[in-house]
């Protein structure tokens, strides 16, 4: 061996030591985020329009990510407060870990489109969207101070198909303010039905109380679908849970940027109809809890459970937990009322009683039921019956849109008031479908999603 070869060998040995040292460096938690952010950055650059606001926000968010922020903090608030026209972005998504993750990962799309007439200006500042959910961040300016925005109704359309409303579930609302103000910021949470695709442009028409007879406030919201294209993780499950002879099969979980959907099927051979699964929560390997955002009954035997998203936080493990099932014998799914005698003819048990049944208009009756429930554990706004019903002769009638459900704090009883539209001759008793009832299978369950 020559001296030179030996020297090279020494250096190579040291370089191999150096390699070991580099390999020992742990992979940072922010690596996945860096990849996602690169992808989002590419999509943004790929668009024709430049969005300076988004770029500014992106720069601010990089700072936040470098600091390793996980939860909302004053620094985070300052960093994301730059969506034009919207200073309260953080408070609008606070409490929903999926949306917080979306905001932290630059997933907010600036919109800034307004409609203004009759002294009211409504602006859509931005949206947080994916294939299933559209969160609309808005500002409303009123001509006179109020304690809340008097929203009366929203209608959503695919702007390219303006006559066909989108099949959506809308949640909105806020706690009335103590001091009236003229300017409000808020979030409208729109869940898209599973059969519909998110349109490229969504039109939202809004009506306000106190402004009846005037034109709707109408805004067309561009949805940049490239921002969330392919951004979902599908986890096949096929895991069965059985209790008291009833079986449910967890089919699959889908993790979207702003929500997690878990599909459940109930065995057709079950003797009970399952209405609802109670106290659902997803728990991550770090102990973070992703809250339930409700469930949708796709049919009598299929349900989709929705949760806050973990898309951006990417936990290694995700476990679904529930405490009990609301379920009723399939033989007891009908309730019969005699309006003339003002009595219940048939009910699952004696937990429900008829409080009143009175005629409130031509062909309209208002019925009030009271049902015993334990408000400390039931945590459910019972409606008991819903939808079309039949009279003794088999004629089909409809329930009206008006409905209230209230529980007095010191009484374990919920009062439910609803309207029935008896606009043609009918024969007592009337048979209603039971859609929920305080009847429970007490059996905690757990399903490992990943």
């Amino acid at each position, binding site marked *: 061996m020559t001296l030179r070869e030996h020297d090279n060998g020494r*250096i190579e040995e040291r370089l191999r030591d*150096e*390699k070991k040292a580099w390999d020992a*460096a742990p*992979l940072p938690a922010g690596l996945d985020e860096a*990849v996602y952010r690169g*992808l989002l950055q590419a999509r943004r650059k790929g668009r024709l329009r430049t969005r300076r606001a988004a770029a500014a926000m992106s720069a601010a968010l990089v700072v936040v990510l470098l600091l*390793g922020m996980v939860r909302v903090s004053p620094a985070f608030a300052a960093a994301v407060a730059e969506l034009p026209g919207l200073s309260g972005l953080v408070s609008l998504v606070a409490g929903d870990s999926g949306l917080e993750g979306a905001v932290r990962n630059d997933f907010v799309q600036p919109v800034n489109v307004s409609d203004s007439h009759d002294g009211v200006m409504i602006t859509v500042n931005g949206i947080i969207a994916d294939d299933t959910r559209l969160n609309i961040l808005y500002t409303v300016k009123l001509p006179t101070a109020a304690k809340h925005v008097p929203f009366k109704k929203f209608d959503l359309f695919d702007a390219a198909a303006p006559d066909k409303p989108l099949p959506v579930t809308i949640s909105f609302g806020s706690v009335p303010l103590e001091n009236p103000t003229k300017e409000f910021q808020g979030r409208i949470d729109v869940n898209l039905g599973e059969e519909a695709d998110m349109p490229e442009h969504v039109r939202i028409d809004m009506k306000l109380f106190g402004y009846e007879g005037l034109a709707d406030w109408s805004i067309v919201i561009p949805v940049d679908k490239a921002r969330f294209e392919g951004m979902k993780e599908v986890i096949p499950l096929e895991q069965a849970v059985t209790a008291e002879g009833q079986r449910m099969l967890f089919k699959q979980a889908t993790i979207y940027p702003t929500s997690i959907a878990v599909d459940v099927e109930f065995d057709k051979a079950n003797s009970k109809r399952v209405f609802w699964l109670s106290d659902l929560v997803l728990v991550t390997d770090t102990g973070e809890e992703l809250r339930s955002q409700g469930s949708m009954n796709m049919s009598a035997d299929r349900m989709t459970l929705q949760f806050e998203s973990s898309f951006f936080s990417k936990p290694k493990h995700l476990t679904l937990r529930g405490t009990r099932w609301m379920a009723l014998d399939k033989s007891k799914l009908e309730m019969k009322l005699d309006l003339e005698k003002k009595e219940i003819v048939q009910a699952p048990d004696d937990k429900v009683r008829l409080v009143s049944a009175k005629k409130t208009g031509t062909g309209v009756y208002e019925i009030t039921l009271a049902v015993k429930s334990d408000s400390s554990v039931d945590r459910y706004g019972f409606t008991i019956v819903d939808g079309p019903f039949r009279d003794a002769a088999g004629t089909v009638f409809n329930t009206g849109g008006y409905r209230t459900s209230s529980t007095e704090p010191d009484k374990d009883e919920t009062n439910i008031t609803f309207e029935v539209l008896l606009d043609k001759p009918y024969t007592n008793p009337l048979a209603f479908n039971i859609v929920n009832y305080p009847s429970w299978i007490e059996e905690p369950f757990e399903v490992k999603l990943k």
Partner: protein
Amino acid sequence: MLGLDTNEQAKAAKAGNSEAFLRLLEGSKERLYRIALAYLHQEADALDAVQEATCRAFQSLRKLKEPSHFETWMVRIVLNACADEYKKRRRRGPEAWLEKTGTAGIAGAAIAFSDASDTRVSLRQLVDGLPREQKEIIILKYYQQLTVTEVAAVLECPEGTVKTRLHKALVTLRGVLGEEGIHDFARA
């Protein structure tokens, strides 16, 4: 080894399917990050480089001629992103460097070298000071253990050129560290 069995995914990614693109990166991201960390030494800078490389790659996917060469191509892009980041850092000057070093986020490198000897740190400084084309070869050949053929494919140059640059790099390193090497030889 480069050239994973990623042909179909790469084709889907080329067609603009970002899910396929992310899946492909899933298999490469660790390598890309380690290359960037060895190049830039700072975790935050390395993450910036990975982000920038991801962005550039997705934007220019259609330029990827052979889908099976996705990882080779990605490594080239991350090296370019690192070179740009390196230049930027030089422009920012030593204050920016110190400022960043002083914050959290470089735990990786810090932990890796908490027990490092002075000699190893000085080798690191020497590699860092090599001309770009030599430094890249050291990272790929020694830290990523690629063959000369694979390094040539990443850098899109003949194997002979890789060998020449590698030789020059080792000569430079030996020139500075050589005395110690001879001393060791004499002792042995």
